[in-house]
């Protein structure tokens, strides 16, 4: 009888303490997971905002260049973006980059010839390089090898 009494009192408390611990741990894990998820979502939103902001600035600079180069002007800077020029065989090549953040930027290169202004590349450069748009010369194009789709 003595043993039965002591078991009943202790076991209830132990079970409740165990349930409480489990509940607290799971609640804190859920909260930390939700916070991390929220931080990730905010970082993603921020990166998208930065990208379109930089892309818009690059588009404005390119638009301004396409108006000024035919007039014979070579602006060194437009909207705080430095533009580099290089004399090419047929005309002048230009490059500039619109910064996304401290490590990434949208790099734009093109050329201006008698035929007009032409864009060569519009890429994201930095730690995580992503080729968005690159012009390929016909000689650079390497076709895929033949794929054995149907075998006789």
């Amino acid at each position, binding site marked *: 009888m003595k043993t039965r*009494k002591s078991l*009943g*009192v202790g076991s*209830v*408390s132990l079970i*409740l303490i165990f*349930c*409480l611990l489990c*509940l*607290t741990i*799971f*609640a*804190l894990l*859920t*909260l930390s*997971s*939700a*916070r991390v*998820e*929220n931080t*990730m*979502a*905010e970082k*993603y*939103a921020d990166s*998208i*905002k930065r990208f*379109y*902001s930089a*892309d*818009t600035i690059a*588009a*404005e600079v*390119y*638009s301004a260049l396409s108006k000024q180069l035919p007039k014979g002007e070579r602006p060194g800077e437009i909207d705080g973006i430095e533009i580099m020029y290089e004399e090419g065989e047929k005309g002048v090549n230009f490059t500039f980059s619109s910064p996304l953040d401290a490590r990434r930027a949208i790099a734009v290169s093109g050329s201006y010839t008698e035929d007009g202004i032409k*864009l060569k590349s*519009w890429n994201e450069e930095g730690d995580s390089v992503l080729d968005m*748009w690159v012009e390929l010369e016909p000689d650079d194009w390497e076709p895929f090898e033949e794929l054995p789709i149907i075998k006789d």
Partner: protein
Amino acid sequence: MPKKSKSYGASMIELVVAVLIFSIAAALCTKIFVTAMQISDESQELTTAVLMAESAAEIYRAKGDISELEDFCVSESHSKALILSYKEKKSGHLAIQVSKEERILFEIEVAYGGGLK
């Protein structure tokens, strides 16, 4: 016999105290769960808003046509209860905004890039 009733009384008090503490702690934990759920919902809304704005921005960036965005806004806003609105700021520039119940979740400005290439 008196010894036995005293022991039952003690265990009863212990049980009541334990249940009381458990109830308070469970209520606090429930509050934490609810907060976590709200944060998670906000994250999901923000991600959806960003994806909606990004898709609309890419449509405008490629085509520069606002009429296609109207269909896009209606179909998305029905399912997600998020409203995508846009305004042409100047020629070739569009401000895109995603909001929910007059609360702005995400906004970007995009330039029409189709004419460049």
